């Protein structure tokens, strides 16, 4: 009987250990102290109205571990450069580029914390970066993403300003997240200024666009 109880206890402990993400010591505490004024990490998405979205000071990060690449995130937190041309939720004010910087140690700990925040919507190993002619046509003409997003052309930056820049997406974004975002955008951002292109493009087209974006230098 005692053996059974011990076995059950060990089993339960193992279950808890595998279910909870493991963070480098202190990453969640640093985040809680320094970052929760602008970002939330307890998903799923909370925004239901435009007012909810406009009340946010920065992007939600509850799926950060599925969205970002770890090396990029650790480097960016130490030396943050604007990703959005405009201030968050603004169509008039330039991004002031005033995101706080973290020390190397804090950045590593916060990165570990954020990379533990995964979305079950993102399936791994689906998309490989690839610049296909099919995707170039969709990105440029059929569903012109560049209308709202900056993108690179031979080292130059082109495109619109309202959305986050796609320049450097190959280093910043997880290609599988880009695909999951395009196919089920409402799961990540129920209220956003981007249309739901899954209503007009099939999954093959969306996969090609995700691969195309994921190749941007």
């Amino acid at each position, binding site marked *: 009987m005692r053996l059974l109880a011990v076995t059950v206890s060990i089993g339960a402990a193992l279950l808890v250990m595998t279910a909870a993400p493991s963070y480098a010591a202190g990453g969640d505490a640093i985040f809680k102290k320094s970052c929760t004024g602008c970002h939330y990490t307890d998903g799923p998405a909370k925004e239901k109205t435009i007012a909810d979205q406009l009340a946010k000071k920065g992007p939600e990060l509850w799926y950060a571990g599925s969205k970002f690449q770890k090396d990029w995130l650790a480097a960016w937190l130490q030396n943050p450069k604007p990703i959005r041309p405009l201030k968050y939720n603004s169509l008039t004010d330039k991004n002031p580029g005033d995101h706080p910087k973290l020390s190397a140690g804090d950045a590593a700990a916060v990165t570990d914390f954020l990379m533990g925040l995964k979305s079950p919507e993102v399936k791994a190993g689906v998309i490989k970066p690839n610049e296909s002619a099919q995707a170039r046509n969709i990105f440029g003409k059929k569903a012109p993403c560049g209308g*709202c997003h900056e993108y690179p052309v031979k080292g130059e930056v082109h495109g619109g300003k309202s959305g986050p820049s796609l320049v450097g997406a190959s280093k910043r974004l997880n290609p599988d997240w880009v695909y999951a975002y395009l196919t089920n955008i409402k799961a990540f951002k129920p209220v956003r200024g981007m249309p739901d292109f899954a209503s007009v493009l099939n999954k093959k087209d969306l996969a090609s666009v995700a691969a195309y974006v994921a190749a941007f230098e």
Partner: protein
Amino acid sequence: MLRFLIVTATVLGLALSAVGSAQAADSKQVYDFYCAQCHGTDGKGRGINVTKDFATDPRNLTSSSEMEKRSDEDLRGVIKDGGPSISKSALMPPWGATLTTDEVEGLVKYIRKLCDCKGK
């Protein structure tokens, strides 16, 4: 009795007027959130996305001469299905899977206010 009727009618009128302005405010919020990025908050088609790379000028929604050529049904269709639905640019994307029917209707009315015109 007459006084009662007048008071009731006045209260009802005020209430309906309040509902009307709330809807107008909501439609402006919807417009500013989704449409202003290309059409501009003033509707003149010079939103923040209109850079040298923007292949076509977004419609100037304040132009009554242009906007009266479009029916309200045209506007609904373009908002929901995008520019290609009326052989115009795909830079006007489809919002049908994003906006509610009420939001689309509100936008049609808001756009009619911007152009101060009626559809054909």
